[in-house]
């Protein structure tokens, strides 16, 4: 119900606010909402906190732009391909890391991120430390537009698809298995849950979704480099959005992004001009305050009122 209202509101939005600045904020918020929702499959439902999701975002983005630049493959194919490459990497990375739990899994994903960053910086075919740019063009085939409006609709469609995918997964058997593993892995195994396979499934699907959004991100920004894509800060932003909204809930990450991204962008515009970094300071304060006063996410606001 709420989701339906949100979809209608988002569909009307570009007509009500033609200003590209607002549209850009909504696109960014949709992207982070989707990234948070994808992360949530592993971090929320499976309960393995990954700080390495920027790897999948970066891999998807790099795959898309490399295919476009070096093989002239359209992003229509490149973006899904990025998702597949990200899923393949998750398959490799997941084998050693998913055995770990708690802090160890989190640390291992940070390590994976650091290794990926170094490799990308030293990979000259992919532009090394300077990264690669998308060509400047205005072509439907290449998904490159001068106007921001088409990107709005792509992000909108992708976000609806991401939401539907996570909803379907969580409501189906995998979702129940993930929550069972999260609750007590040994007990879930004893009851016959093939834990290895389902942990891997969550990780791979989450990576695939993140990779697809990485492809969109690279095309949308028109540029990708190791420092912006393979950064711990980006990973933490994704986690933050999910936690702020409510970990392990379907709507939570979207809610978190809807609040956090306009706030961050607004502060950046209002204060960023001073070059003093007040925006990041307020961002930090906001994180601390939210953790202190809403430790289970925005989503609990509604529950509290219902309880009272």
């Amino acid at each position: 119900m709420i989701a339906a209202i949100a979809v209608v509101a988002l569909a009307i939005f570009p007509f009500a606010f033609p200003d590209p600045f607002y549209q850009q904020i909504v696109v960014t918020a949709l992207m982070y909402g989707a990234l948070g929702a994808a992360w949530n499959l592993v971090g929320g439902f499976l309960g393995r906190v990954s700080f390495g999701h920027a790897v999948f975002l970066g891999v998807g983005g790099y795959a898309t732009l490399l295919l476009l630049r070096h093989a002239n493959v359209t992003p229509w194919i490149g973006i899904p391909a990025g998702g597949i490459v990200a899923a393949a990497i998750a398959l490799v990375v997941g084998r050693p890391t998913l055995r770990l739990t708690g802090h160890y899994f989190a640390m291992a994903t940070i390590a994976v991120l650091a290794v990926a960053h170094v490799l990308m910086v030293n990979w000259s075919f992919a532009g090394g430390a300077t990264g690669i740019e998308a060509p400047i063009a205005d072509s439907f085939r290449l998904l490159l537009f001068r106007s921001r409006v088409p990107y709005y609709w792509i992000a909108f469609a992708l976000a609806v698809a991401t939401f539907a995918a996570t909803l379907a997964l969580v409501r189906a058997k995998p979702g129940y298995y993930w929550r069972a593993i999260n609750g007590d892995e040994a007990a879930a195994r004893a009851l016959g849950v093939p834990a290895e396979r389902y942990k891997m499934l969550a990780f791979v699907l989450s990576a695939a979704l993140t990779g697809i959004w990485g492809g969109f991100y690279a095309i949308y920004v028109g540029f990708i480099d190791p420092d912006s894509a393979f950064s711990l800060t980006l990973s933490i932003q994704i986690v933050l959005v999910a936690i702020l909204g409510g970990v392990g809930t379907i709507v939570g990450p979207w809610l978190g992004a809807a609040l956090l991204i306009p706030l961050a962008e607004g502060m950046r515009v209002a204060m960023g001009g001073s070059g003093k970094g007040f925006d990041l300071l307020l961002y930090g304060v906001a994180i601390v305050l939210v953790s202190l006063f809403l430790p289970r996410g925005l989503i609990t606001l509604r529950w509290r009122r219902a309880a009272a």
Partner: protein
Amino acid sequence: MLEALSTGLFNGLVYAAVAVGLALIWGITDVINFAHGDFLMLAMYVAYWLFTLGHVDPTLSAPIAACALALVGFLAYALIIRPLSRAPAMIVILATFGLGLVLRQLAFIAFSPDYRNLPDTWLSGSIRLGGISLGRPQVATGLVALAMIIVLFVLVYRTRWGHALQAVAEDRQAASLVGIACDRVNAQVWMLGSAAVGVTGALLTSFFYVFPSVGAVFVLLAFVAVAMGGFGSLPGAFLSGILIGVVESLTGYWFEPAYKTASIFVIFLLVLWYRPRGLFGRW
């Protein structure tokens, strides 16, 4: 080769010194302090300003920085960590990340992003040891770090107070049943761990630049050292810190300096593959 090895050894001692504070806090209160690197940064600024404004050498300001950081650690525990003691672990991590961001940005606003260094400290210069030339500040910092680690080790593993710490780490409820004030112990651990990073930070200013995000240079390696050494194991963190320093400098010597960090993280992942709870982790 020998020179690379000894440089690595002393760098490793510095990493170990940053890591022990983290290991202590992580091991006993079960919190990964993402602000640990920013605590280090604060300590470095304390030493920097004491030298620049008061001409106090970093060697002397180390105890002052330790006290200042113990206060910071206490405040962090009392204002953020303790209220979150019932919250999910992820939230606590995030809160410390937020705290780190706040500290970093405050330093950025107050002190500007400039790289600063101390020109002439008592420790400046280099020494020659059997044909190997080593920076004196590095050696002194390494030795102090070693001494500090030994003191911490004795405190935690050999004193009555240390046994109380371990009891809290083992089982909080059981510890409070036998009359240990868990809350007080946790606060003391935060103060002690932060004081340790305070000493390290002050000494570090004698040979390393001070800037608002300096913590990031050390803290990731410190995290790796702690995780690789095994959850909350002080000797583990110490040995892995040294291992990291040596691996780093040997990679730079044999291959390319660009692969220094990658080799450390690859080794870390290998360790986790064979020992999912770290080298010295409790099973």
